[in-house]
């Protein structure tokens, strides 16, 4: 909402400067976004004393100019209208010329000194006229500041009015709030009731509850000419164009008093009735904004017997609009259901000053005072005769008084305000107060439709006193050491990020969105949005891997081909909240290391991703020894080089090489890429009852021995089976079993591989004898052979 200082002062009797007003406006909840002064500073009214032809140029004149003091100033001027005796606008050297953007300098034009400039309207930024310099009336006072004389030195204040403060969508409303805040007195609004001299030939009919009430006045023999200068200036000062007197009056009433109006050219109305009704399918309206709108039954229109003339509360129609020829007009002053206006406007995607106010709520009493004020303005500016006012519907009754406890400013607002002050402040805001002992009754004024409860009244008082006055109180702590604030899953998500970063992966945060085409690599029907912001972001991601692959591709395009990224975040498998999962996801692409002088660089592989997964699981004390690791993975992984990690029935995650098809689609081509996904919500939770105490450490004091065994076994046989069989050979004595070599190559029979195991034997109660060691070794070999068909290599 833009207002000017001088306009505000038409309603507010105050000596406060614009700066003081602006600060106070922000303090009472009318946030000032900017305060700007008209840009014409330093331009003075000058008289051209003489204008002689330039000795060296036919089209130039050498003028002697008086600015009311000092000796006359010589100015070389090219304007054809420059003549002795005229009044114009002078700019001195050093000044900025707003219309051209140049800094004026003293000059010498073809041998004649020029110590300033006489300005055209365009040079002053006041219009398009550049045919000559400003030709001011003869009575313009020489030496006066031009901007002040023309009323252009006003201060423009731009206010961000929150949606609840419909009452402040007018200059008067803002003045009223400032007066309540103690910054001056609200001047009374001069309203003289008008008696119509004839019955209106048109009447109102309400057939839709989208219109609550409507008043109408018929004017005959009006002249819809240009508006007077004051009205043009007022509108121009807030950036509005003058159109014609009648249109300007409706716009002025909207801005000045927050009362949108509409005027119809009465001669273009068919029949004798204007009806507020729902539009019908197939109807349309050529509106004043130049567009034609197709209407539907949810929209509220004002119609005559021929069809819709206007969109009630939003915009008038072009055919029934007023023009220079208009002689007879019908004024509409209506009250609408805000929700209905909002819905119609939204359906048509049509914004207007009227809609903006009606959908936020217009003072119901403005049906009375708005009509009176509009009649006065129209008669004043356009002449003619006004009819008796016709009315349909009823002004809604004032809502019941609100029970209010004055103690609430302190118990809710944290600020003690004595009851007398409270009563004074509320009265200034227009409330009617019935005081009681501790319980009052407060009736808000008609223009404050936003006040409905005690909390609203507390806010009114706090904002007028200023939120600064509320003393700060730190929140008292319930316990001196607060309880832990994270759930186990939150804690693990936080730790997972820190752990993965220490493992060398960079944390990414990518959108929850994804392109549908990408998402379908992960889920046949991903969750689609009804109104995506773009086709690249039209579904919710079913896996984070797609976004990480895209990120790796972008980084590769910038020259970073080896990436290691992770993200811990949500994926969405269906719209149900049960299908949103928190997934720790990682992606490694390219080489494990950059080339370095020690060597050691190699392409990333399955075991990097598996190590990431196991590191996370072990960090969270998941019993990884019990994991079932199987080559059963979703289709976006390499079917032979990826694994699912299962614990009992629950799949905790997947890891492995990305499917080459997906890599190709991601623009990563032949690069090696491995990833993992760990479902943090599915990890087993610690048993709360078990507490934090550990089982006692059982460490044998007796010597441990390590024995190596190399087995020749079918390639398809999994190493896990060998280890399991070996461990099972003696559960008491075997304390560790590890793979320390794997060989698959030409030196072995076809289809075979060599697996070397290092097995640690240790007893808790004695040192093992050679005989025991030999016997256990034999049992190990036998068990592995039995379970896997392996043979011991010798």
């Amino acid at each position: 909402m833009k207002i000017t200082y001088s306009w505000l002062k038409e309603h507010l009797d105050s000596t406060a400067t614009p700066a003081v007003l602006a600060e106070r406006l922000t303090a009472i909840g009318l946030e000032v976004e900017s305060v700007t002064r008209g840009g014409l500073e330093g331009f003075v009214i000058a008289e051209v004393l003489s204008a002689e032809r330039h000795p060296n140029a036919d089209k130039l004149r050498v003028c002697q100019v008086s600015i009311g003091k000092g000796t006359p100033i010589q100015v070389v001027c090219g304007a054809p209208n420059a003549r002795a005796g005229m009044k114009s606008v002078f700019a001195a050297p050093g000044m900025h010329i707003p219309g051209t953007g140049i800094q004026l300098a003293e000059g010498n034009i073809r041998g004649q000194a020029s110590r300033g400039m006489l300005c055209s309207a365009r040079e002053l930024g006041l219009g398009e006229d550049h045919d000559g310099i400003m030709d001011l009336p003869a009575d313009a006072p020489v030496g006066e500041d031009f901007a002040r004389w023309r009323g252009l030195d006003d201060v423009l204040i731009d206010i961000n009015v929150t949606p609840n403060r419909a009452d402040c969508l007018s200059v008067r409303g803002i003045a009223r709030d400032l007066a309540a805040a103690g910054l001056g007195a609200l001047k009374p609004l001069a309203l003289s009731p008008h008696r119509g001299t004839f019955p209106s030939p048109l009447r109102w009919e309400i057939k839709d509850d989208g219109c609550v009430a409507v008043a109408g006045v018929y004017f005959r023999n009006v002249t819809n000419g240009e508006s007077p200068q004051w009205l043009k200036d007022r509108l121009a000062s807030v950036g509005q164009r003058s159109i014609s007197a009648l249109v300007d009056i409706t716009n002025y009433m909207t801005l000045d008093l927050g009362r949108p109006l509409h005027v119809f050219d009465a001669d273009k109305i068919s029949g004798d009735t204007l009806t507020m009704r729902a539009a019908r399918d197939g109807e349309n309206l050529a509106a004043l904004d130049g567009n034609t709108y197709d209407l539907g039954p949810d929209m509220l229109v004002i119609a005559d017997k021929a069809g819709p003339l206007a969109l009630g509360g939003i915009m008038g129609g072009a055919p029934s609009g007023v023009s220079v020829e208009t002689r007879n007009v019908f004024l509409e002053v209506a009250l609408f259901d805000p929700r209905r206006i909002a819905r119609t406007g939204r359906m048509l995607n049509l914004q207007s000053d009227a809609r903006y106010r009606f959908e936020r709520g217009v003072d119901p009493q403005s049906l009375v005072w708005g009509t009176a004020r509009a009649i006065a303005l129209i008669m004043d500016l356009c002449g003619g005769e006004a009819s008796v006012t016709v009315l349909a519907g009823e002004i809604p009754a004032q809502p019941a008084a609100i029970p209010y406890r004055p103690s609430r400013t302190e118990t809710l607002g944290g600020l003690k305000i004595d009851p007398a002050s409270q009563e004074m402040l509320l009265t200034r805001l227009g409330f009617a107060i019935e005081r009681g002992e501790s319980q009052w009754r407060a009736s808000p004024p008609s223009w404050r439709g936003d006040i409905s409860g005690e909390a609203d009244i507390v806010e009114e008082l706090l904002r007028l006193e200023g939120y600064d006055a509320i003393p700060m109180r730190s929140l008292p702590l319930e316990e001196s050491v607060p309880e832990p604030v994270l759930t186990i899953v939150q804690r693990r998500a936080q730790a997972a990020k820190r752990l993965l970063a220490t493992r060398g992966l960079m944390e990414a945060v990518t959108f929850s969105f994804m392109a549908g085409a990408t998402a379908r690599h992960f889920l046949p029907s991903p969750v689609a949005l009804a109104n995506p912001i773009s086709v690249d972001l039209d579904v919710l991601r079913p896996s984070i891997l797609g976004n990480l692959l895209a990120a790796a591709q972008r980084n590769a395009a910038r020259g970073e081909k080896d990436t290691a990224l992770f993200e811990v975040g949500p994926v969405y498998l269906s719209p149900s909240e049960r299908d949103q999962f928190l997934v720790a996801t990682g992606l490694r692409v390219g080489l494990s290391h950059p080339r370095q002088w020690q060597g050691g660089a190699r392409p990333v592989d399955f075991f990097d991703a598996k190590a990431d997964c196991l590191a996370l699981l072990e960090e969270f004390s998941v019993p990884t020894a019990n994991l079932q690791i199987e080559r059963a993975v979703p289709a976006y992984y390499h079917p032979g080089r990826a694994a699912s990690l299962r614990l009992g029935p629950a799949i905790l995650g997947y890891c492995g090489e990305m499917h080459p098809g997906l890599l190709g689609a991601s623009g990563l081509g032949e690069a090696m890429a491995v990833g993992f996904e760990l479902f943090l919500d599915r990890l087993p939770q610690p048993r709360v009852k078990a507490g934090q105490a550990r089982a006692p450490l059982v460490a044998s004091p007796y010597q441990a021995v390590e024995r190596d065994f190399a087995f020749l076994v079918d390639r398809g046989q999994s190493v896990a089976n060998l280890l399991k069989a070996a461990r099972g050979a003696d559960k008491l004595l075997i304390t560790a079993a590890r793979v320390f070599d794997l060989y698959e190559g030409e030196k072995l029979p076809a289809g075979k591989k060599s697996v070397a195991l290092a097995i640690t034997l240790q007893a808790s109660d004695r040192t093992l004898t050679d005989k025991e060691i030999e016997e256990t070794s034999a049992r190990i070999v036998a068990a592995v052979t039995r379970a896997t068909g392996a043979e011991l290599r010798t």
Partner: protein
Amino acid sequence: MPSASRDLLLEDEIDTSRIDTVSSLQDLDHIKVELLGKKGRISEALKRLGALAPEERRAAGAALNALKDQVSEKIEARRHILEKAALDRRLQAEEIDVTLPARWEARGRIHPISQTIDEIIAIFGAMGFRVAEGPDIESDFRNFTALNIPPDHPARQMQDTFYLPPDATGERAVLRTHTSPVQVRTMMSEKPPIRVICPGRTYRCDSDMTHTPMFHQVEGLVIDEQTHMGHLKGCLQDFVRAYFGMSDLRVRFRPSYFPFTEPSAEMDIGCDRTKGTLKIGAGADWLEILGCGMVHPKVLENCGIDSTRYQGFAFGMGIERIAMLKYGIPDLRTFFDADLRWLRHYGFAPLDIPNTVAGPLR
């Protein structure tokens, strides 16, 4: 010492000065064998002791043993010197170029959003706020209606909402436009007193220089029987001072409007814009940082909480925004790019875990 007796046993005087000049460990060993070995001269002399008379034997024995100790000590001293010299030579030969780079190790970084969320949790955690979370796909009721934003309310135009297609019952789910639905869930499932913060992803159908369709918010909620607006001011001042690490940071509260709070406020922090850049803390200017207010009684009632008995406050702020302000990150859109250069530059060391007790790591 009767040197006569000793001399009787040794063929010649022993010249121990050779020990001090020998230059290799090998030569030193030769000397040791020659003098102290089983057939060495001193050993041989000791063997001859038995031939002496008891009186003489005692004196000569003592003298010989003293000589043996003296020689032995000398040899060991020399050995020590020679060994040290040998070690020095070896170490010198083993010298490497220490300016060669260390073995490469990947360095991961924590994203500023995670870091900022952890900081927020640490500070509000110290004030007794628990972390609550909820799904990103929400019902229209929890995102709007329960928060006193009925259909057709102009406030719904303040937020451009992502919708899912209507389900079988005609209900249209939304991507939550704020984390307030988590507050609604908390109030509907728990009894006061409540103190929670709700960090998380939020969505608005908006994309330009300063907006991304997804961003993060943290909201907070306190519900009990006595918390009032003074506590709201104090709690949030405590937060911003701790977060920005400025114990004298100025704050200002202005009246504002949100459908879900009454009274409502916006909070500004002191800043300076005069030097072309924004500096938090100094100067006379103000910067809006968050919205807050006392929870609207209708919201309490919508969530099944008796508004005649309970009250409290709520607040919400943008996580990227406060991260940008604290860490001088200029562009919101870069947060979601996963550009490695950006992550290395603006990211955080993994062990830089925010902690109000320990303080920052760098």
